[in-house]
């Protein structure tokens, strides 16, 4: 079976404390439970959660949706976005099956990055490692006004911004992520083709603004 890997890279630095981090936890829960109801996603989508604060950590390895368990997430420390990108590259390299003569490899991973601040580490180094891996669509989300959308723009073409990092807005973002994963897995299963650009994703809700 060819997996559709989905990586969530979530900023859990100190500034996310309180409402934002609770909203993120809630968002993951909503994401997982709605994808479990979707026959396309339930069979193909695999989910991993990488959090980053002072360091990056893969708190959930790439896991089948049906066995996914909600991780403990706490907000503390700084914003090591670069570390998160290089960890992502490393984990994707290890977890995503490559095509060989005997088996077809996995689909290209979908990546959703969410951050509310400036990276505090050497993010270009992480970015270089990230660029070496093959990913499908990569969506970077600036949660609130303090995130650096320019940095995110260097990571990917698809940058979206939330006006505020409150629970309703973050929830809307995760719903959109869920719809995107659903659509991605549906496309794969019905036509064998991957989602390649923002225009092929479901239209984002009003809370999620596309940064041009």
């Amino acid at each position, binding site marked *: *079976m*060819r997996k559709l890997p989905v990586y969530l890279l979530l900023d859990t630095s100190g500034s996310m404390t309180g409402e934002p981090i609770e909203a993120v936890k809630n968002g993951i829960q909503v994401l997982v*439970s709605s994808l*479990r*109801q*979707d*026959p*396309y996603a*339930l*069979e*193909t989508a695999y989910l991993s959660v990488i959090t980053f604060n002072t360091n990056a950590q893969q708190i959930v390895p790439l896991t089948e*949706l*049906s*066995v*996914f*368990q*909600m991780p*403990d997430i706490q907000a503390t420390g700084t914003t090591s976005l670069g570390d998160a990108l290089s960890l992502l590259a490393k984990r994707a390299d290890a977890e995503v099956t490559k*095509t*060989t*003569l*005997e*088996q*077809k490899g996995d*689909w290209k991973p979908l990546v959703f990055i969410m951050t509310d601040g400036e990276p505090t580490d050497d993010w270009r180094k992480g970015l270089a490692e990230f660029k070496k891996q093959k990913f499908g669509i990569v969506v970077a989300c600036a949660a609130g006004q303090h995130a650096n959308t320019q940095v995110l723009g260097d990571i990917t073409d698809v940058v979206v911004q939330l006006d505020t990092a409150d629970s309703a807005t973050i929830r809307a973002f995760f719903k959109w992520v869920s719809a995107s994963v659903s659509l991605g897995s*549906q496309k794969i*299963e*019905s*036509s*064998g*083709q*991957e989602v390649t650009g923002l225009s092929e994703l479901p239209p984002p809700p009003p809370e999620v603004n596309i940064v041009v």
Partner: protein
Amino acid sequence: MTIKEYLESIGVLFETNEEALRFLNQAEVIDFLSAKKDNLPKEADETKSDETRNPIDENIIEEIFYVEEDIPLKSSDLLDDPLAEDTSKTDDMAKFSDYSVPMNEDEKQQARDNAFAETVRSKHFTLQNAKVNQPYNFSVDPDFIQANHIGEFWFDGLEALGLEFDKADNTIKGIPTKSGDHKITWHYRHIDWTEGRPTFQRDLTLVVNPDPRSLWNNTPTSTDIPFYKPDCDKAFRKVGAKSGFLGLRKEERKDMVAASQRGRSHAHGGSPRDDDFAFHFDEKNEWYVLVVADGAGSAKYSRRGSEIACHTTIDVCRKALEVSSDNLEQLIAGFKKEDSQENRKKVGDLIYQVLGAAVFKSYKNIEEEAKNSDSELRDFSTTLLMTICKKFKFGWFVASFWVGDGGIGIYDKNTQFLKVMGEPDGGEFAGQTRFLTMPEIIQPAEIYRRLRFGLVDDFTALVLMTDGITDPKFETDANLMRIEKWNSLWEDLSKEVDFENDVDCSNQLLAWLDFWSPGNHDDRTIAILY
């Protein structure tokens, strides 16, 4: 916060948590604390009075109460007597607030119980996810129970889901009947629980995954759409035995069966089947023609593209064989006699005139349809896999043309012979197959390159299939060349389809197409000569 961290915060430093615990066991602790207190930051002394004590402090105190139970040396000495008697309490000692007021036994017990409850609540404890209608068996980790001093425990909310908790082996068992995220209440008691002491509870979530099969809807395709075609199709052609001269030497002949089923992914969304097939037996010259085609999922009228390709192929081959059958048969006989370059070329050229014409005409007919319906040629994108074959005294002649993914193979179960009639156009990247509707495909050299022909003694089955079958059954292009994979396919087919008794088995074949393979829900089409 650990005890070590807490002690650190009041200025008492230790290397490890164990050391901090050991420290608390010493009767000299009070002296130690008294000595250390002078080093404490002033603010800490001033801000933390009894009244402003924050909840973290409370928890820590509870944890101390709780931890001391483990320690052999009765630290009640430490917590009760010395502190209670010490009337010259310092401010920082007031942090151990409750020490300032002597606790009675009940209060101490209550504090211990609360500390226990909090500790257990803070531990990571989850129930393994279940699947609906599948046996569930989850044992609570005995080490976890022991390490946290948990005594008796049980769960509420399991029965409604068809599960039960077996106390004998601390296992939740049963077959869950309801999918969803269910709330389960976990009740637990301290290992030293006695009547009158509390039972605590914690809410857990038990995820019961739905059966993926139950999530797939089967929505019929609207008949109003342009180029509607039924969601499934099947056909059987009994060719039957041929009587020889004066009814003697009766000769068995192969039959044909085919079936095409809309994929679950299309059925779920009510979108049409894009695959198609057709076959034909020419009574006069005894040629068999079989064809399957897979309309591209991303092309809006590909269902029509595959249909046109199949029918055009049959049409062109039928007419061309009427004209050239005799000629072709002679050339084949010559080729059989001597497999020379020259003879091979002669057969090849004539095959090109038959199959090549079918390919070219299919392309042209689709192009025409695109024009008539104001659409693009690529809206009709389809693969095309075709064979013509005939039995001679010296064996079978089989010729094929193949563009796109899927597969054509000649398989013999007894001799373990396998000949795959071409190469799939899967390409390095999934979903980047070639289609008949690409102009470069109908260049003569390209058509020639895709033609295959040969002679075989006999075979169990000649199989044409779309990638809805090759993907789940063979996975990769390399596996398509492996006889083991064909053996499993044939074994799998023979279990459900009666190929032995000259009966119409197309219904069985259609039913077989419903096989379950996670992540593989494309349209499936297969045509078999057997």
